[in-house]
């Protein structure tokens, strides 16, 4: 999941893939703005065949939290 997510993240921000760790924060560490983040979630929905709940993603700040959330959605 982390590797797939890295591939999507680098489409949005110019960041060294090595820095995309579970601890990395989307906004503070990776340089996302709020619309980048929402747009990326849209790509993830398509890639993983899941439906993201906009209200729930308000609690997602780090790559690790995102992976946990997406894995839960995948069941």
């Amino acid at each position, binding site marked *: 999941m982390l590797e797939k997510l890295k591939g999507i993240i680098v489409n949005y921000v*110019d960041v060294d893939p090595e820095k995309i760790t579970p601890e990395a924060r989307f906004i503070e560490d990776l*340089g996302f703005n709020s619309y980048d983040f*929402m747009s990326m979630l*849209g790509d993830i929905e*398509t890639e993983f065949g899941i439906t993201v709940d906009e209200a729930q993603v308000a609690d997602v700040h780090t790559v690790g939290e995102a992976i946990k959330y997406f894995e839960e959605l995948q069941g």
Partner: protein
Amino acid sequence: MRNCKDKLFEFQTADGFNAMKGNVITMEKSKIRTLANLITESAGEYGSNIFIKEIKGGEVAETTFAGFYENVRRVAGYIQKKKAEFGEMPSGKQLHGAVIGPSSSNWLTAWFGLAASGNVAVPLDAGLSCEDICDLLNRADVSIFFYDKLYEKMIPAVKENCPNVREYVCLADIYEVTGECEPIELPKISPSELAAIVYTSGTTGKSKGVMLLQSNYIDNTMCQDNESSPEDVVMSVLPIHHIYCFTCDILCSLRYGANLCFNDSMLHITKNLQVYKPTLMLIVPMIAETIYKQICAAHKTKPEIPVAAIAQNVFGGRLKTIYSGGAYLRPELQRAYLDMGFNMAQGYGMTECSPRISTADPNDKECAGDVGVIVNGAAVKTEDGEIMVKSPSVMAGYYKDEAETAAALTPDGWLRTGDLGYVDDKNRIFITGRKKNLIILSNGENVSPEELENKFAGREIIGEVLVYSDEGIIAAEIFPSPEASKSLSAEEIDEKIKEAVNDVNKSVSSSKKIHRIRVRENEFPKTTSKKIKRNGAPEGRIIG
């Protein structure tokens, strides 16, 4: 360019003068004096054409102009029935109904069911908390609450706190609830009747209920010509409760017969651009910035493909015109979009003016930093540097708030915008700041914080910046751009920020120089419309 700053002047365009006298420009316009006229005429003119496309259950659902008209008349019938049942209401003769939820045909049907039947629609911001929703329902004297299914969990709390709300209608069930009512002939409404109360989010203070009349909406919808046509596909991405979206996306689509496509979520803009393939869009600068970054990133990986071709592909392949509004658009970004082959223009307005005060000619390639040319029918002047507007689009006042109304409207009908700026000899408006945010220095000189903040635009290290008076001196509080600072040490970040501030200081007079720099660790708190809240306490370490 003639700089008219701080100089009292006034002008009206020739068309504007006619419109202000109540004359009409074309026969078609003469038929449309109310919102009921607008949808009746649009159904007659464009009947079987598709008015709305939206995503429902993963599929694109369509509503024709005639179908929409029929749906509105059914909901209007339900509202008239309820009004008769309710008898006396705290709102008086007109029934007030609130609508909340993301953009949908059902949301729009509820809104028009209210406003086109001579009652009052109260569109609410979908991002509000339960507490704020209750507060506005009470303050706006709402009797019927139309809500999206997303708010179902809040309803028990709303019922407990809003005793005047008599009926609750889930938008998903709107046709089941109203099904027993026959579609009615829309009643004859006076253009001077109240059509909506629109609450402004505001960066400071309590939100105010802007009272917009039938004639306000119609004037602003009709104030320009040839903006779109039945061939146009408009993808609507902004919040539907927002006046900019409502008038310019929705009412203008009804007027011109354009196909209005609702984006179902901020998550899906990129995907929906490929589904709807719009020809025209209204966006805010943040969306323009992000899409531009994506285009640049794609071009970096495929430099053999021209950037204009990538851009067209990202936007679905048919996009011609982009209007930007809601916040400051960097002239450099506007230029970048023009260079990619789009017509891109920015306008200026406010809820109190329904909203357009000026609108740009998308064919104007100058990127002079203006916010467009004054719309037909509006007169603009400046008083002590503040932009003042008089037009048939200007609100009737704030609902049940005489003090705020008197502060905003002069006795002879001029709206104080609170914005500082000037108009040049091409009738273009230039904004320099907000009056209420002015920093008044000990020498009596006024400094506009926005004027200084805008000077930071385009500097990589600056993520967000707020300028204010900190213990009597001009301070800049900065949240460094995470992207630009990710490979830098704290010392290097501070150094780059100091350089940016020094550059800005070099470009302003000595009294406007920034003498204190604070660096924040977190983004600034924002309003629901993503504007920085200006009234927070200073935060962050001082580095200079």
